[in-house]
Protein backbone atom coordinates (compact mmCIF):
# COMPACT_ATOMS: atom_id res chain seq x y z
CA UNK A 1 0.00 0.00 0.00
CA UNK A 2 1.20 3.50 -0.91
CA UNK A 3 2.46 5.39 2.18
CA UNK A 4 0.70 8.62 1.04
CA UNK A 5 -2.61 6.77 0.82
CA UNK A 6 -2.08 5.32 4.28
CA UNK A 7 -1.33 8.77 5.75
CA UNK A 8 -4.33 10.21 3.91
CA UNK A 9 -6.58 7.47 5.24
CA UNK A 10 -5.33 7.97 8.82
CA UNK A 11 -5.75 11.75 8.51
CA UNK A 12 -9.36 11.46 7.32
CA UNK A 13 -10.05 8.85 10.02
CA UNK A 14 -8.64 11.20 12.71
CA UNK A 15 -10.75 14.10 11.37
CA UNK A 16 -13.81 11.84 11.32
CA UNK A 17 -13.17 10.71 14.93
CA UNK A 18 -12.67 14.30 16.07
CA UNK A 19 -15.96 15.44 14.49
CA UNK A 20 -17.82 12.61 16.24
CA UNK A 21 -16.03 13.37 19.55
CA UNK A 22 -16.71 17.12 19.39
CA UNK A 23 -20.28 16.40 18.24
CA UNK A 24 -20.96 14.22 21.29
CA UNK A 25 -19.19 16.71 23.58
CA UNK A 26 -21.26 19.60 22.15
CA UNK A 27 -24.49 17.88 23.23
CA UNK A 28 -23.36 17.84 26.87
CA UNK A 29 -22.31 21.46 27.19
CA UNK A 30 -23.39 24.96 26.25
CA UNK A 31 -22.94 26.17 22.68
CA UNK A 32 -19.43 27.43 22.03
CA UNK A 33 -18.95 31.15 21.43
CA UNK A 34 -17.29 31.57 18.05
CA UNK A 35 -15.17 34.53 17.08
CA UNK A 36 -17.11 37.29 15.37
CA UNK A 37 -17.24 37.11 11.58
CA UNK A 38 -18.80 40.42 10.43
CA UNK A 39 -20.22 38.83 7.24
CA UNK A 40 -22.52 36.48 9.16
CA UNK A 41 -23.71 39.28 11.48
CA UNK A 42 -24.56 41.39 8.45
CA UNK A 43 -26.27 38.42 6.80
CA UNK A 44 -28.55 37.85 9.80
CA UNK A 45 -29.59 41.51 9.81
CA UNK A 46 -30.09 41.51 6.03
CA UNK A 47 -32.44 38.52 6.16
CA UNK A 48 -34.62 40.30 8.72
CA UNK A 49 -34.65 43.47 6.66
CA UNK A 50 -35.46 41.58 3.44
CA UNK A 51 -38.44 39.87 5.09
CA UNK A 52 -39.71 43.19 6.49
CA UNK A 53 -39.22 45.11 3.26
CA UNK A 54 -40.64 42.38 1.00
CA UNK A 55 -37.43 42.17 -1.01
CA UNK A 56 -35.47 39.14 -2.12
CA UNK A 57 -32.25 37.40 -1.12
CA UNK A 58 -29.97 36.21 -3.87
CA UNK A 59 -27.67 33.34 -3.02
CA UNK A 60 -25.19 32.17 -5.62
CA UNK A 61 -23.46 28.86 -4.96
CA UNK A 62 -20.93 29.24 -7.75
CA UNK A 63 -19.85 26.89 -10.49
CA UNK A 64 -17.87 24.16 -8.72
CA UNK A 65 -19.38 20.94 -10.07
CA UNK A 66 -19.83 18.37 -7.30
CA UNK A 67 -17.73 15.83 -9.21
CA UNK A 68 -14.79 18.27 -9.25
CA UNK A 69 -12.32 19.30 -6.51
CA UNK A 70 -14.23 22.60 -6.20
CA UNK A 71 -17.44 20.74 -5.33
CA UNK A 72 -16.99 21.11 -1.55
CA UNK A 73 -17.40 24.90 -1.69
CA UNK A 74 -20.60 24.46 -3.71
CA UNK A 75 -21.91 22.04 -1.10
CA UNK A 76 -20.97 24.53 1.64
CA UNK A 77 -22.96 27.08 -0.36
CA UNK A 78 -26.03 24.83 -0.25
CA UNK A 79 -25.78 24.80 3.58
CA UNK A 80 -25.91 28.60 3.59
CA UNK A 81 -28.72 28.51 1.05
CA UNK A 82 -30.74 26.15 3.23
CA UNK A 83 -30.34 28.28 6.36
CA UNK A 84 -31.15 31.52 4.54
CA UNK A 85 -34.13 29.98 2.70
CA UNK A 86 -35.57 28.83 6.01
CA UNK A 87 -35.16 32.28 7.55
CA UNK A 88 -36.60 34.07 4.52
CA UNK A 89 -39.43 31.60 3.80
CA UNK A 90 -41.92 33.78 5.71
CA UNK A 91 -41.21 36.73 3.39
CA UNK A 92 -43.28 37.84 0.40
CA UNK A 93 -40.57 37.12 -2.13
CA UNK A 94 -38.77 33.78 -2.09
CA UNK A 95 -34.96 33.79 -2.22
CA UNK A 96 -33.32 33.10 -5.58
CA UNK A 97 -30.42 30.69 -5.92
CA UNK A 98 -28.12 30.79 -8.92
CA UNK A 99 -25.41 28.37 -9.97
CA UNK A 100 -23.13 27.76 -12.91
CA UNK A 101 -23.40 23.99 -13.12
CA UNK A 102 -26.23 21.57 -13.82
CA UNK A 103 -25.71 19.37 -10.76
CA UNK A 104 -25.48 22.41 -8.46
CA UNK A 105 -28.66 23.75 -10.08
CA UNK A 106 -30.52 20.56 -9.17
CA UNK A 107 -29.06 20.64 -5.65
CA UNK A 108 -30.10 24.26 -5.17
CA UNK A 109 -33.68 23.45 -6.21
CA UNK A 110 -33.73 20.44 -3.90
CA UNK A 111 -32.26 22.45 -1.02
CA UNK A 112 -34.85 25.21 -1.44
CA UNK A 113 -37.70 22.72 -1.59
CA UNK A 114 -36.46 20.89 1.49
CA UNK A 115 -36.13 24.22 3.40
CA UNK A 116 -39.70 25.15 2.49
CA UNK A 117 -40.93 21.69 3.47
CA UNK A 118 -39.26 21.92 6.88
CA UNK A 119 -40.87 25.33 7.43
CA UNK A 120 -44.29 23.91 6.42
CA UNK A 121 -44.69 26.21 3.40
CA UNK A 122 -43.89 23.78 0.58
CA UNK A 123 -46.78 25.20 -1.48
CA UNK A 124 -44.83 28.48 -1.76
CA UNK A 125 -41.83 26.75 -3.33
CA UNK A 126 -41.15 27.89 -6.88
CA UNK A 127 -38.90 25.55 -8.92
CA UNK A 128 -37.71 28.57 -10.91
CA UNK A 129 -36.13 30.08 -7.82
CA UNK A 130 -33.21 27.64 -8.23
CA UNK A 131 -31.63 28.68 -11.51
CA UNK A 132 -28.70 27.65 -13.65
CA UNK A 133 -27.56 31.06 -14.87
CA UNK A 134 -24.92 29.85 -17.32
CA UNK A 135 -22.47 27.04 -17.85
CA UNK A 136 -19.16 28.81 -18.45
CA UNK A 137 -17.61 31.27 -15.95
CA UNK A 138 -18.54 34.36 -17.94
CA UNK A 139 -21.96 33.16 -19.11
CA UNK A 140 -22.75 32.29 -15.50
CA UNK A 141 -21.72 35.79 -14.45
CA UNK A 142 -23.59 37.42 -17.33
CA UNK A 143 -26.69 35.37 -16.48
CA UNK A 144 -26.54 36.30 -12.80
CA UNK A 145 -26.10 40.05 -13.27
CA UNK A 146 -29.66 40.73 -14.56
CA UNK A 147 -31.10 38.71 -11.67
CA UNK A 148 -29.28 40.92 -9.16
CA UNK A 149 -30.35 44.05 -11.04
CA UNK A 150 -33.97 43.32 -12.01
CA UNK A 151 -35.47 41.08 -9.34
CA UNK A 152 -35.62 43.40 -6.31
CA UNK A 153 -32.68 41.76 -4.61
CA UNK A 154 -31.79 43.39 -1.30
CA UNK A 155 -28.59 41.40 -0.65
CA UNK A 156 -26.46 39.00 -2.68
CA UNK A 157 -24.53 36.18 -1.07
CA UNK A 158 -21.81 34.56 -3.16
CA UNK A 159 -20.70 31.33 -1.48
CA UNK A 160 -19.05 28.68 -3.61
CA UNK A 161 -16.46 28.56 -6.35
CA UNK A 162 -16.02 31.94 -8.09
CA UNK A 163 -13.07 33.31 -10.01
CA UNK A 164 -12.13 36.93 -10.53
CA UNK A 165 -15.21 37.38 -12.77
CA UNK A 166 -17.24 37.66 -9.53
CA UNK A 167 -16.35 41.36 -9.56
CA UNK A 168 -18.92 41.81 -12.36
CA UNK A 169 -21.60 40.48 -10.00
CA UNK A 170 -20.53 42.73 -7.13
CA UNK A 171 -20.59 45.68 -9.52
CA UNK A 172 -24.13 44.79 -10.64
CA UNK A 173 -25.15 44.60 -6.97
CA UNK A 174 -23.57 47.96 -6.18
CA UNK A 175 -25.33 49.59 -9.13
CA UNK A 176 -28.68 48.25 -7.89
CA UNK A 177 -27.92 49.50 -4.38
CA UNK A 178 -27.67 46.10 -2.69
CA UNK A 179 -24.69 44.89 -0.67
CA UNK A 180 -22.74 41.71 -1.43
CA UNK A 181 -21.26 39.14 0.91
CA UNK A 182 -18.75 36.97 -0.88
CA UNK A 183 -16.65 33.91 -0.17
CA UNK A 184 -14.89 31.49 -2.48
CA UNK A 185 -12.31 28.72 -2.36
CA UNK A 186 -10.52 30.25 -5.35
CA UNK A 187 -7.46 32.37 -4.43
CA UNK A 188 -7.79 35.01 -7.15
CA UNK A 189 -11.52 35.13 -6.55
CA UNK A 190 -10.86 35.78 -2.86
CA UNK A 191 -8.51 38.66 -3.60
CA UNK A 192 -11.08 40.23 -5.90
CA UNK A 193 -13.95 39.71 -3.47
CA UNK A 194 -11.87 41.22 -0.65
CA UNK A 195 -11.72 44.44 -2.64
CA UNK A 196 -15.16 44.33 -4.25
CA UNK A 197 -17.61 42.80 -1.77
CA UNK A 198 -19.03 44.61 1.23
CA UNK A 199 -18.08 41.70 3.49
CA UNK A 200 -15.74 38.85 2.62
CA UNK A 201 -15.50 35.28 3.86
CA UNK A 202 -11.81 34.38 3.81
CA UNK A 203 -10.57 30.81 3.40
CA UNK A 204 -12.35 28.34 5.65
CA UNK A 205 -14.97 30.92 6.64
CA UNK A 206 -16.92 29.88 3.52
CA UNK A 207 -17.35 26.47 5.15
CA UNK A 208 -18.33 27.89 8.57
CA UNK A 209 -21.77 29.17 7.52
CA UNK A 210 -23.65 26.24 9.03
CA UNK A 211 -22.07 26.66 12.48
CA UNK A 212 -22.63 30.43 12.50
CA UNK A 213 -26.23 30.23 11.28
CA UNK A 214 -27.29 27.50 13.71
CA UNK A 215 -27.39 24.45 11.43
CA UNK A 216 -26.81 22.02 14.31
CA UNK A 217 -24.18 20.38 16.53
CA UNK A 218 -22.44 18.54 13.68
CA UNK A 219 -21.63 21.84 12.01
CA UNK A 220 -20.22 23.19 15.26
CA UNK A 221 -18.29 19.95 15.78
CA UNK A 222 -16.79 20.08 12.29
CA UNK A 223 -15.73 23.69 12.81
CA UNK A 224 -14.10 22.79 16.14
CA UNK A 225 -12.32 19.94 14.34
CA UNK A 226 -11.05 22.39 11.71
CA UNK A 227 -9.66 24.71 14.41
CA UNK A 228 -8.07 21.81 16.29
CA UNK A 229 -6.47 20.16 13.25
CA UNK A 230 -5.23 23.49 11.90
CA UNK A 231 -3.52 24.26 15.22
CA UNK A 232 -1.99 20.77 15.12
CA UNK A 233 -0.70 21.24 11.57
CA UNK A 234 0.79 24.65 12.43
CA UNK A 235 2.53 23.10 15.44
CA UNK A 236 3.90 20.27 13.29
CA UNK A 237 5.14 22.77 10.69
CA UNK A 238 6.95 24.80 13.37
CA UNK A 239 8.55 21.64 14.82
CA UNK A 240 9.57 20.46 11.33
CA UNK A 241 11.10 23.88 10.54
CA UNK A 242 12.97 23.95 13.86
CA UNK A 243 14.33 20.43 13.27
CA UNK A 244 15.29 21.43 9.75
CA UNK A 245 17.25 24.38 11.16
CA UNK A 246 19.37 22.04 13.26
CA UNK A 247 19.94 19.73 10.31
CA UNK A 248 17.29 17.05 10.84
CA UNK A 249 15.06 16.67 7.79
CA UNK A 250 12.01 14.67 8.86
CA UNK A 251 10.32 15.01 5.46
CA UNK A 252 12.88 12.70 3.77
Amino acid sequence: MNLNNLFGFIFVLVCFGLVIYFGVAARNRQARAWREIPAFGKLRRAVGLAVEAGTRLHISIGRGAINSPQGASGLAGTVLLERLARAASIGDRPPIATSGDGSLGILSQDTLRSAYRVMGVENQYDPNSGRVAGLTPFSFTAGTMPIIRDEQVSISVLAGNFGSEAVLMTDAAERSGSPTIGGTDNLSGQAVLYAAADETLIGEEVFAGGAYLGAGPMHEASLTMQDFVRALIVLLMIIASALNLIGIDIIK
Partner: protein
Amino acid sequence: MRTPLSAAVAIIVGLLILAGYFFPFGPLLSLKNTLIQWAMILAGFALLVGVVNLIKVHWIKIRKRSPGSIYSLILIISLAVTIVVAGYFGPVASSSLWIFNNVQVPVETSLLALLSVLLIYVVVRLLRRRPDSISILFIATVFLVLLGTAPLFFIGEVRVLTVIRNFIVQVPAVAGARGILLGVALGAIATGIRILTGADRPYGG
Protein backbone atom coordinates in the same frame (compact mmCIF):
# COMPACT_ATOMS: atom_id res chain seq x y z
CA MET B 1 -36.41 9.20 -3.28
CA ARG B 2 -36.68 10.61 0.24
CA THR B 3 -34.88 10.16 3.54
CA PRO B 4 -33.66 7.68 4.75
CA LEU B 5 -33.18 5.79 1.47
CA SER B 6 -31.54 8.70 -0.38
CA ALA B 7 -29.30 9.38 2.65
CA ALA B 8 -28.32 5.70 2.85
CA VAL B 9 -27.45 5.56 -0.87
CA ALA B 10 -25.42 8.79 -0.66
CA ILE B 11 -23.51 7.67 2.44
CA ILE B 12 -22.74 4.15 1.12
CA VAL B 13 -21.62 5.42 -2.29
CA GLY B 14 -19.50 8.15 -0.66
CA LEU B 15 -17.80 5.66 1.66
CA LEU B 16 -17.14 3.19 -1.18
CA ILE B 17 -15.54 5.88 -3.36
CA LEU B 18 -13.45 7.15 -0.44
CA ALA B 19 -12.30 3.60 0.32
CA GLY B 20 -11.47 3.10 -3.38
CA TYR B 21 -9.19 6.16 -3.29
CA PHE B 22 -7.25 5.02 -0.25
CA PHE B 23 -7.11 1.30 -1.12
CA PRO B 24 -6.83 1.33 -4.92
CA PHE B 25 -6.76 -2.39 -5.60
CA GLY B 26 -9.08 -5.33 -6.19
CA PRO B 27 -12.85 -4.96 -6.27
CA LEU B 28 -12.76 -1.61 -4.43
CA LEU B 29 -10.87 0.03 -7.30
CA SER B 30 -13.19 -1.30 -10.00
CA LEU B 31 -16.24 -0.39 -7.92
CA LYS B 32 -14.89 3.13 -7.41
CA ASN B 33 -14.24 3.54 -11.15
CA THR B 34 -17.71 2.25 -12.03
CA LEU B 35 -19.40 4.58 -9.55
CA ILE B 36 -17.39 7.54 -10.85
CA GLN B 37 -18.40 6.66 -14.42
CA TRP B 38 -22.04 6.61 -13.33
CA ALA B 39 -21.51 9.98 -11.65
CA MET B 40 -20.09 11.39 -14.90
CA ILE B 41 -23.15 10.17 -16.81
CA LEU B 42 -25.44 11.70 -14.18
CA ALA B 43 -23.46 14.95 -14.36
CA GLY B 44 -24.09 14.96 -18.13
CA PHE B 45 -27.82 14.60 -17.51
CA ALA B 46 -27.61 17.32 -14.87
CA LEU B 47 -26.06 19.58 -17.50
CA LEU B 48 -29.04 18.88 -19.74
CA VAL B 49 -31.43 19.64 -16.88
CA GLY B 50 -29.51 22.88 -16.31
CA VAL B 51 -29.98 23.90 -19.95
CA VAL B 52 -33.71 23.08 -19.76
CA ASN B 53 -33.95 25.18 -16.56
CA LEU B 54 -32.18 28.05 -18.31
CA ILE B 55 -34.60 27.89 -21.26
CA LYS B 56 -37.63 27.67 -18.95
CA VAL B 57 -36.62 30.72 -16.88
CA HIS B 58 -35.97 32.82 -19.97
CA TRP B 59 -39.15 31.61 -21.69
CA ILE B 60 -41.16 32.78 -18.67
CA LYS B 61 -39.40 36.14 -18.87
CA ILE B 62 -40.38 36.48 -22.55
CA ARG B 63 -44.00 35.49 -21.86
CA LYS B 64 -44.31 37.98 -19.00
CA ARG B 65 -42.57 40.67 -21.09
CA SER B 66 -40.26 41.34 -18.14
CA PRO B 67 -37.61 44.07 -18.43
CA GLY B 68 -34.78 42.83 -20.65
CA SER B 69 -36.88 40.05 -22.17
CA ILE B 70 -35.37 40.84 -25.57
CA TYR B 71 -32.08 39.43 -24.25
CA SER B 72 -33.89 36.28 -23.15
CA LEU B 73 -35.23 35.93 -26.69
CA ILE B 74 -31.73 36.37 -28.14
CA LEU B 75 -30.44 33.75 -25.69
CA ILE B 76 -33.06 31.17 -26.68
CA ILE B 77 -32.57 31.77 -30.41
CA SER B 78 -28.76 31.57 -30.07
CA LEU B 79 -29.07 28.40 -28.00
CA ALA B 80 -31.40 26.80 -30.57
CA VAL B 81 -29.13 27.74 -33.49
CA THR B 82 -26.03 26.41 -31.69
CA ILE B 83 -27.75 23.14 -30.73
CA VAL B 84 -28.97 22.62 -34.32
CA VAL B 85 -25.59 23.46 -35.92
CA ALA B 86 -23.44 21.51 -33.42
CA GLY B 87 -25.96 18.64 -33.29
CA TYR B 88 -26.18 18.28 -37.07
CA PHE B 89 -22.58 18.98 -38.14
CA GLY B 90 -20.82 17.83 -34.96
CA PRO B 91 -19.04 19.86 -32.26
CA VAL B 92 -15.71 20.11 -34.13
CA ALA B 93 -17.13 20.91 -37.58
CA SER B 94 -16.05 24.22 -39.14
CA SER B 95 -19.54 25.75 -38.74
CA SER B 96 -19.64 24.86 -35.03
CA LEU B 97 -16.13 26.21 -34.53
CA TRP B 98 -17.12 29.37 -36.44
CA ILE B 99 -19.83 30.04 -33.83
CA PHE B 100 -17.35 29.38 -31.03
CA ASN B 101 -14.55 31.53 -32.48
CA ASN B 102 -16.69 34.40 -33.76
CA VAL B 103 -19.38 34.66 -31.12
CA GLN B 104 -18.40 33.08 -27.81
CA VAL B 105 -14.70 33.95 -27.78
CA PRO B 106 -15.17 37.68 -28.66
CA VAL B 107 -18.01 38.07 -26.13
CA GLU B 108 -16.02 36.43 -23.33
CA THR B 109 -12.89 38.39 -24.28
CA SER B 110 -14.89 41.62 -24.07
CA LEU B 111 -16.07 40.66 -20.61
CA LEU B 112 -12.46 39.92 -19.65
CA ALA B 113 -11.42 43.38 -20.88
CA LEU B 114 -14.26 44.92 -18.89
CA LEU B 115 -13.06 42.96 -15.88
CA SER B 116 -9.60 44.53 -15.97
CA VAL B 117 -11.05 48.04 -16.02
CA LEU B 118 -13.52 47.14 -13.28
CA LEU B 119 -10.74 45.80 -11.07
CA ILE B 120 -9.04 49.21 -11.07
CA TYR B 121 -12.34 50.87 -10.22
CA VAL B 122 -12.89 48.35 -7.41
CA VAL B 123 -9.48 49.14 -5.91
CA VAL B 124 -10.34 52.86 -5.83
CA ARG B 125 -13.76 52.08 -4.35
CA LEU B 126 -12.16 49.98 -1.63
CA LEU B 127 -10.41 53.10 -0.28
CA ARG B 128 -13.75 54.90 -0.10
CA ARG B 129 -15.57 51.99 1.55
CA ARG B 130 -12.94 50.72 3.98
CA PRO B 131 -10.30 53.41 4.43
CA ASP B 132 -8.15 51.48 6.92
CA SER B 133 -4.53 50.36 7.10
CA ILE B 134 -5.31 46.87 5.71
CA SER B 135 -6.91 48.37 2.59
CA ILE B 136 -3.93 50.67 2.07
CA LEU B 137 -1.56 47.70 2.46
CA PHE B 138 -3.68 45.70 -0.02
CA ILE B 139 -3.63 48.48 -2.61
CA ALA B 140 0.08 49.20 -2.13
CA THR B 141 0.85 45.50 -2.64
CA VAL B 142 -1.30 45.37 -5.78
CA PHE B 143 0.53 48.37 -7.28
CA LEU B 144 3.99 47.13 -6.33
CA VAL B 145 3.32 43.73 -7.88
CA LEU B 146 1.82 45.34 -11.00
CA LEU B 147 4.73 47.76 -11.43
CA GLY B 148 7.29 45.02 -10.89
CA THR B 149 5.62 42.56 -13.28
CA ALA B 150 5.87 44.43 -16.60
CA PRO B 151 8.40 46.92 -18.03
CA LEU B 152 7.31 50.55 -17.51
CA PHE B 153 6.67 52.99 -20.36
CA PHE B 154 9.87 54.77 -21.50
CA ILE B 155 11.80 53.41 -18.49
CA GLY B 156 11.81 49.68 -19.10
CA GLU B 157 12.44 47.26 -16.28
CA VAL B 158 13.15 48.81 -12.87
CA ARG B 159 15.41 46.40 -11.02
CA VAL B 160 14.35 47.36 -7.49
CA LEU B 161 10.64 46.98 -8.34
CA THR B 162 11.29 43.53 -9.81
CA VAL B 163 13.16 42.49 -6.65
CA ILE B 164 10.34 43.76 -4.41
CA ARG B 165 7.75 42.08 -6.62
CA ASN B 166 9.60 38.77 -6.54
CA PHE B 167 9.90 38.94 -2.75
CA ILE B 168 6.18 39.67 -2.33
CA VAL B 169 5.13 36.94 -4.75
CA GLN B 170 7.55 34.29 -3.45
CA VAL B 171 7.42 34.86 0.32
CA PRO B 172 4.38 36.60 1.90
CA ALA B 173 1.97 35.75 -0.94
CA VAL B 174 2.92 32.06 -0.94
CA ALA B 175 2.73 31.91 2.87
CA GLY B 176 -0.69 33.57 2.89
CA ALA B 177 -1.96 31.43 0.02
CA ARG B 178 -0.83 28.24 1.77
CA GLY B 179 -2.57 29.32 4.96
CA ILE B 180 -5.79 30.01 3.08
CA LEU B 181 -5.57 26.76 1.09
CA LEU B 182 -4.98 24.82 4.31
CA GLY B 183 -8.17 26.30 5.71
CA VAL B 184 -10.06 25.55 2.51
CA ALA B 185 -8.81 21.95 2.46
CA LEU B 186 -9.86 21.41 6.08
CA GLY B 187 -13.23 22.99 5.29
CA ALA B 188 -13.64 20.63 2.33
CA ILE B 189 -12.82 17.62 4.53
CA ALA B 190 -15.30 18.83 7.17
CA THR B 191 -18.01 19.24 4.51
CA GLY B 192 -17.27 15.74 3.19
CA ILE B 193 -17.48 14.25 6.68
CA ARG B 194 -20.81 15.97 7.36
CA ILE B 195 -22.21 14.54 4.12
CA LEU B 196 -20.80 11.07 4.83
CA THR B 197 -22.42 11.10 8.28
CA GLY B 198 -25.72 12.33 6.84
CA ALA B 199 -25.59 15.58 8.86
CA ASP B 200 -25.72 17.57 5.61
CA ARG B 201 -28.21 16.38 3.01
CA PRO B 202 -28.11 18.72 0.04
CA TYR B 203 -30.08 16.12 -1.94
CA GLY B 204 -33.40 16.99 -0.31
CA GLY B 205 -33.20 14.47 2.49
